[in-house]
């Protein structure tokens, strides 16, 4: 098993702290504007001094197929590039009581870089980051919490806005749908941007596309109450939107989009799904391949990877609290894949333009407030 390695970890840890490599500082850190899809960070294995890394999930667990999973993937990607020392530790929380001991365990195991996944870990991270200035920290879905903490926040609704516009242009029934796991900001930001994107389409085109599942005014909508895709409730939530005639649906939260895919397939309707986080065509099982119209990319994995790599290359990004968005490439829209031929060129161009406009700030719309911790 992976047990006899704790000695290696500590060794590696002591090695690196003893000999901090300060040569290759700037390069990797400044390269933050690439689109999250394109993984091009690796120059050469030799450039990194591998750092002992520890990953602490929030109570959703590492296999949530959402931000915890993405973050852990980022750690493993960094492992592949040699930025992370062998056998990074992952500590799964089952409740809020686990956060602190897990972080303490990370420190006790000699972690040099600790990734805390999710806004729920913010306070714990802040406290321990202050007490352990030598350790580098990355927190997902929260702003920076100190000089040694990289905050990864995402203005996801920028991508969702464009996706909403796209969906409004693509729907055949004039109705598009969206639902989430539970009404928490990291989820509802997608729903909000999506609904506003549809509204923008209606405004621009004088169309009357209806969104079901999100009420912009009430900031509330359709939720499954669970992130467990196997709960019959999830599929039923999707079906209830299909029943109303929605044909393009954006489900937000782990894998709760999969049952929706099966529902669309079972009903034999010309429907589509919009994925979230990582390009669904690559991340999700093959049987759903044709369903993904696009994915609203939220580059957690890549940002985590970069943050660790920056550390490993001696240029920690700590203290940065910049929000990932379209402009800096942490947010994006995935290729249309199977839908490439079906999306009219004109619409594709409009969406492209919207992405640019948002990035440049020329579209006027009310953005979702991120973090606000």
């Amino acid at each position, binding site marked *: 098993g992976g047990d006899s390695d704790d000695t290696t970890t500590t060794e590696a840890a002591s090695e690196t702290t003893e000999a901090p490599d300060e040569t290759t500082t700037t390069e990797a850190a400044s390269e933050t504007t690439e689109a999250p899809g394109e993984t091009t960070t690796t120059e050469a294995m030799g450039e990194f001094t591998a750092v002992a890394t520890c990953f602490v999930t929030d109570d959703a667990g590492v296999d949530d197929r959402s931000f915890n999973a993405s973050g852990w993937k980022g750690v493993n990607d960094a492992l592949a590039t040699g930025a992370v020392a062998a056998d990074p530790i992952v*500590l799964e929380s*089952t409740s809020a009581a686990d956060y602190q001991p897990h972080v303490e365990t990370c420190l006790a195991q000699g972690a040099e870089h600790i990734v805390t996944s999710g*806004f729920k870990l913010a306070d714990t991270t802040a406290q321990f980051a202050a007490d352990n200035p030598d350790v580098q920290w990355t927190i997902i879905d929260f702003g920076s919490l100190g000089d040694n903490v990289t905050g990864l926040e995402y203005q996801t609704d920028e991508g969702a806005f464009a996706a909403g516009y796209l969906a409004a242009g693509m729907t055949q029934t004039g109705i598009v749908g969206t639902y989430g796991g539970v009404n928490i900001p990291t989820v509802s930001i997608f729903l909000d941007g999506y609904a506003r994107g549809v509204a923008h389409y209606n405004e621009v085109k004088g169309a009357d596309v209806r969104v079901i599942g999100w009420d912009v005014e009430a900031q509330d909508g359709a939720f499954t109450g669970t992130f467990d895709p196997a709960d019959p409730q999830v599929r039923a939530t999707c079906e209830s939107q299909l029943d109303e005639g929605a044909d393009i649906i954006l489900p937000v939260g782990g894998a709760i989009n999969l049952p929706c895919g099966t529902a669309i397939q079972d009903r034999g309707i010309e429907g589509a799904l919009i994925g979230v986080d990582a390009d669904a065509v690559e991340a999700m099982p093959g049987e759903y391949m044709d369903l993904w119209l696009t994915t609203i990319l939220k580059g957690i994995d890549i940002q985590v990877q970069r943050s660790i790599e920056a550390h490993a290359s001696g240029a920690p990004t700590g203290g940065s609290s910049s929000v990932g968005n379209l402009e800096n490439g942490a947010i994006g829209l995935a290729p249309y894949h199977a839908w490439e031929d079906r999306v009219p060129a004109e619409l594709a161009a409009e969406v492209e333009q919207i992405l640019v406009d948002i990035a440049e700030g020329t579209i006027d719309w009310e953005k979702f407030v991120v973090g606000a911790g």
Partner: protein
Amino acid sequence: MSDQPDVPPDDVGDPGPSLMQRITGVGESARRALLLPSLALVLALLVGAVIIMLTDVDAWQLMGTDAGAAIGDMFEGVWVAYRELFAGAFGSVRGISETLFTATPLILAGLAVAIGFQAGLFNIGATGQMFVGGLFATWIALHVTLPSYLHIPLAILAAIVGGGLWGGLAGLLKAKTGAHEVITTIMLNFIAGFFVLWALKTSAFQDEGSNIPQSSPLPESVQLPTIFGDEFRVNIGLFIAIGAVFFIQWLLYRSTTGFEFRAVGSSPGASLYAGMNVAVLITLVMFVSGALSGVAGSTMTLGLPPYRVSESFPGTIGFDAIALALLGRSHPYGVLWSGLLFGALIAGGRTMQAAAGVSVDLVIVMQALIIMFIAAPELVRAVFRVEHGGEAADQVTRGWGA
């Protein structure tokens, strides 16, 4: 229940229970009180070891090429896992602190379930009562400004009221309409969970301008003071839990109310005959039970650094509490010991997860096995060839009888 309520030994002419019995409070003889649980623990560890080995995928993949090394890896895996489990629970001040910290709400919630069992009620609703109690405490924490020595008691009082009302509601429904508490408490768990999720997004709890469902930070005056210094989490909640153990012990065996609780639990017919108000008692028991859960909830809001309340603070404590109460045979002292055992397992399990890569879920399996072996002494005897004690298995709970 075969446990005899202990009429105070000094009040009865005959030589009372032994010292060991008074300390452990679990059985007729010290031998039985300690031997059986120890053997059960050993057996659970053995089965756990087998499970670790069977699920060691890497080792199994190695099996084809180098069986010797594979088997070696497996044993090594078990050794490291258990070493870390123990070290995480007792190996350092931090470990002990974590064990005690984890045990605190478990003991309180375990008492809640146990007092229900003593009165013939099955409270599956500790989770919901923790939610409501914890939320009430949080409200007081955020909206009242007082010095610590008043603020903390007031917040805990609010937890008692909140948890008590939520538990008492199930009791009242049972007393007035016959709705079975197993159903109502489960449903009230879900309702409370969603209520807290909603409440934490209201301005009464949330930070100004935030949209994250968590409370603003609790003021220092209401944070439960730690015992071994701020770097260790164990706090005065532990004393509250231990105090609750003694209080419930007193309540059950030395007070008229406890006499009534136990009478209703063992024989509703005789309680009615004896002039007790069964409906009021059922409501009251559920109130007390809910209040205990509520206090457990408050230790998870007022006592959990970084002192900011999020929507899942009860975790799985409410369900662990059922196992705990059963393991402690619904006796306050039994709950205390079982709570410490579970606290050690969970705290050690965190370290085990980190150092040995064995998922904390193993702890759940071990909990199940310990309960099973203690509930079926014959199984343990068969394995260890201990002589027959002659006693039948305990019937701790009553069925569905209204």
